[in-house]
């Protein structure tokens, strides 16, 4: 009896497994019919029979309604918030939370990432010299804890952020404008060599007069006037992108008293050094929030979920101030649940079950989701908006927005002076003998041009970006001020590549060839694809042009880049603000140029243009300067400027309100959404 029962159980389970394995998406019914029609052939009318297929239209319109219209479920992939301290956070997952909890003085004009509208500042003025900004602070605004917003809160928020410092924080975006280009941290006002950067113990032991002077430089830069209800900001030089800089999450306004109660800087210049150099885990505001924004933090369970609830006393609702003309005044969804689900299969199941209002879909998985799309909205670059319409099967539950340009790019950078101290395995013999390259191999313009001509952008976009990307002309991204697709740029041309490489090093490269290694961090398919394209295309020209590809563990890769040991390093940049300076600075004179060991004369030429660009206030003048820099970038070819991907956003069709502003990471800014 027992045997029989077990046998039946086993049979059921085995059959069940087979059925599960054979589960597949249902396909829409296709009807095939024969019809006759009359056609005119050489003046004669004939009747012919043709077979046509048609997908029947649904009998009645399909309605899309959520079972839980008051809660928004955003199911994200990898990447959790690092910290909720607005002055420390410097990654998009944290931004997506902070920007909903805190307000800034100014905000974006809806989908426009370069136009700004008042927020906590009712208005602002810029002095004629472009170095002083006066903000008129809005009255009647309350923090989540009920405290009133004052100009002192605003000034303190900026002062405390800068004085807290941090090499991994976004504060360098402030310090350059406040104290001059090349100053990345407040500690450099105490020791200009940078030796005290991120060294709290060293800073506390520094000269007290210098410490006081540094603090006063900050407090003088952000001055509150309680009588006139204004905050004035003094910069060390005109700074075109200043408004864009303070519109981001690090421009969030804190409640001064609340912040001090929770352990941040006490506002006294005699003590600031004691609060300097916190890390993301030691900052007192790591997991505490108190903003004026549309949502309040309900809880953050690291690695699992963040839950926000609507602010019932949101000042925009009370004062009837829409976020931009025609935009919402307050949140229409009461609760937002941002869940971190790393496994794509699980996220896909949640999307199918309707438990994800939107989710992150990896590029390689879009073909799985596309059959579920019933409404397609394609980006129209002319109108900067989407054109929407039904798909072949309008009964499907998802809406897809696609084609919008993103603000992340990976480039391949040439190392002008490869570090070979103590031996370097990436350069082979270290000589131009066909079995290696010399440390200054890329100092020859013909080499750099050859590598540009040997890069196949179409292959890169097809392989690494799943066919959805746009080749960049120069260092800027499409659509940005100063970006001009008509400017000269490199395209894949094997003949020119062969011609240039043959001339390199007075023809010696053409005679003996070269061999070196391109390293990438294991698992990064984009970087690997870049290396493979160069390897294949040079090998096609001549087998003596030998590029080897090596996958490195993350620590080794980082150490190799830091040590300037890789002949070519492939790295990505996600913009902080939607302004050409945020690309010109790192790519032409700052972070990347430094890692490349860019020659002084080249660096100087770029620096002149970058400094002029950031200081100019007239957009037309700025655009012209950045175009000149693009021209120079083409002539010097210090890197291979690759391509930006175009983005996709899938959502359930019961969601409404999505618009695309490239600066919002992920699917944040929840106030714009409503749900049926």
């Amino acid at each position, binding site marked *: 009896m027992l*045997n029989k029962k*077990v046998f039946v159980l*086993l049979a059921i*389970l*085995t059959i069940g*497994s087979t059925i*599960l394995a054979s*589960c597949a998406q249902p396909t829409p019914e296709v009807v095939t019919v024969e019809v006759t029609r009359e056609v005119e052939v050489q003046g004669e009318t004939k009747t012919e029979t043709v077979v046509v297929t048609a997908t029947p239209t649904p009998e009645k319109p399909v309605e899309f309604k959520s079972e839980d219209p008051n*809660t928004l479920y955003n199911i994200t992939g990898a990447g959790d918030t*690092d*910290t909720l301290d607005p002055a420390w956070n*410097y990654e998009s997952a944290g931004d997506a939370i902070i920007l909903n909890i805190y307000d800034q003085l100014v905000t974006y004009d809806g989908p426009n990432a370069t136009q700004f509208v008042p927020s906590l500042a009712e208005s602002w003025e810029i002095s004629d010299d472009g170095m002083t900004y006066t903000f008129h602070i809005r009255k009647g605004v309350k923090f989540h804890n009920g405290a009133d917003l004052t100009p002192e809160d605003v000034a303190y928020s900026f002062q405390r952020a800068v004085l807290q410092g*941090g*090499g*991994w924080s976004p504060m*360098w975006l402030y310090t350059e404008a406040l104290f001059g280009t090349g100053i*990345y*941290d407040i500690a450099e006002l105490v020791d200009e060599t*940078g030796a005290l*950067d*991120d*060294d*709290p113990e060293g800073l*506390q032991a520094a000269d007290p007069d210098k410490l006081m002077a540094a603090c006063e430089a900050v407090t003088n830069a952000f001055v509150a006037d309680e009588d006139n209800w204004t905050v004035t900001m003094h910069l060390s030089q005109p700074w075109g992108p200043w408004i864009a800089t303070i519109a981001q999450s690090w421009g969030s306004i804190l409640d001064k008293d609340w912040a001090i109660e929770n352990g941040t800087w006490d506002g006294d210049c005699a003590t600031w050094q004691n609060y300097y*150099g916190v*890390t*993301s*885990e*030691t900052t007192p505001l790591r*997991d505490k929030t108190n903003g004026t924004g549309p949502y309040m933090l309900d*809880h953050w*369970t*690291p*690695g*699992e979920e963040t839950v926000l609830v609507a602010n019932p006393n949101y000042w925009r609702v009370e004062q009837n101030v829409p976020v931009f003309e025609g935009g919402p005044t307050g949140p229409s969804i009461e609760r937002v649940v941002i*869940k971190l*689900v*790393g*496994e794509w*299969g*699980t996220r896909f*199941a*949640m999307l*199918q*079950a309707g438990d994800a209002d939107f989710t992150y879909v990896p590029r390689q998985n879009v073909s799985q989701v596309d059959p579920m799309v019933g409404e397609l909205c394609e980006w129209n670059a002319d109108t900067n908006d989407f054109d929407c319409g039904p798909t072949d099967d309008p009964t499907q539950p998802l809406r897809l927005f696609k084609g919008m340009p993103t603000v992340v790019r990976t480039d391949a950078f040439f190392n002008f002076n490869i570090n070979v101290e103590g031996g370097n395995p990436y350069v082979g013999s270290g000589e131009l003998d066909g079995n290696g390259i010399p440390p200054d191999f890329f100092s020859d313009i013909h080499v750099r041009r050859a590598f540009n001509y040997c890069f196949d952008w179409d292959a890169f976009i097809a392989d690494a970006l799943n066919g959805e990307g746009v080749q960049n002309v120069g260092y800027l991204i499409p659509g940005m001020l100063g970006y001009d697709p008509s400017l000269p740029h490199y395209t894949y041309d094997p003949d020119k590549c062969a011609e240039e490489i043959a001339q390199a090093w007075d023809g010696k490269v053409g005679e003996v060839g070269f061999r070196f290694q391109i390293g990438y961090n294991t698992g990064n398919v984009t970087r690997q694809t870049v290396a493979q394209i160069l390897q294949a295309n040079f090998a096609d020209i001549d087998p003596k042009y030998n590029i080897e590809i090596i996958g490195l563990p*993350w*620590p*080794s*890769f*980082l*150490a190799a*880049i*830091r040590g300037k040991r890789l002949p070519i390093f492939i*790295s*990505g*940049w996600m913009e*902080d603000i939607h302004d050409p300076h945020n690309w010109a600075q790192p790519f032409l004179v*700052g*972070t990347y140029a430094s*890692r490349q060991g860019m020659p002084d004369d080249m660096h100087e030429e770029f620096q002149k243009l970058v400094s002029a660009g950031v200081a100019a206030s007239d957009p037309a003048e700025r655009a012209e300067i950045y175009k000149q820099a693009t021209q120079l970038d083409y002539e010097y070819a210090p890197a291979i400027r690759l391509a930006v991907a175009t983005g996709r956003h899938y959502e359930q069709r019961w969601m409404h309100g999505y618009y695309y502003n490239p600066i919002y990471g992920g699917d944040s800014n929840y106030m714009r959404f409503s749900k049926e």
Partner: protein
Amino acid sequence: MVNYVIRRLLLVPLILFGVTVLIFGMLQFLTPVERSALYVRDIPKNERALEGVIKQYGLDQPIPVQYWKWLVGTRDPHTGEIRGGILRGDFGYSRTASEPVADLIKRRFPATLELALWAVLPVVSGGVILGVIAAVNHNKPIDHIARIFAIVGWSFPDFVFGLLVLMFFYADLKWLPPGRVSDWANQVIMSPEFHNYTKLITLDALLNLRLDIFWDAVRHLILPVVTLSYLWWALQMRVTRSSMLETLRQDYITTARSKGLAEKVVIMRHALPNALMPVVTLGGSTVVGLLGGVVIVETVFDYHGMGLAFAAAAVQLDVITVLAFTLLNSLIMVVAYVIVDVLYAYIDPRVRLD
């Protein structure tokens, strides 16, 4: 037996010391810059940022100094307070989890324990039952079917099996969702009215007399437990079957049968207890494995337990978290094997632990 248990438990600090010295010793092979990579997620935008990480975390200090600081903590120059120090019960901060390791463990371990408690009975008993049935029906169709069934389970990638059942029972039928509880239940659990006595949701739900929460938590546990059971039955079954077959060939079994005892009595009273010795060992390993976290099952079913956190820390070389988890796992392993040894002595009177 008491002496034996005390002796084994006294070994625990020694084992833990050895494990941590080994892990810190392996760090010797990395340069300070490589070690700084353990603290960062991407190439820094600010060129000087990596030096800052090295300075702030003391990564350029000798490994014995770093080990000592990890043991006893460091004094904050401003407040004078001592921060960190595992001997003070501070496991440090998990960069991958963005929270103190102690908080991470406090939250994740109950989740893993709950899954293990629900899974251990079906995993072990199912395997034992299958093994006994297969052995008793040696070389009969039922034996072959049971073995094929178990082998299919063993060779089925758990990732694939988990996703298949998830697609069917969740995406299609919407019966059994992933996660630990539904969002509405989570709101109740986090409310002040609900008392989290044990952090085991099913148990706490019963103690709070909230059957709706209990059922919701059970719904979320069914698929992970079924997946674990099906995949692990093969091992339990094979060991039980082999052991049972060997026992059934013993003379005393023949004697029992010749005395006219019913077959059920022969199997259940005479054969099974003696065949269970290796099964107990395997059961101990199973419990240790379940308590250490089951990465794939936790990943597929979005069940935030120890396995998921440990895997994330290991992949990103988050040494502080890895060290803490290793310590915990070592402790669980030692205690589990002490229990197994005690069970040995209980099952088999010939075994004397002293």
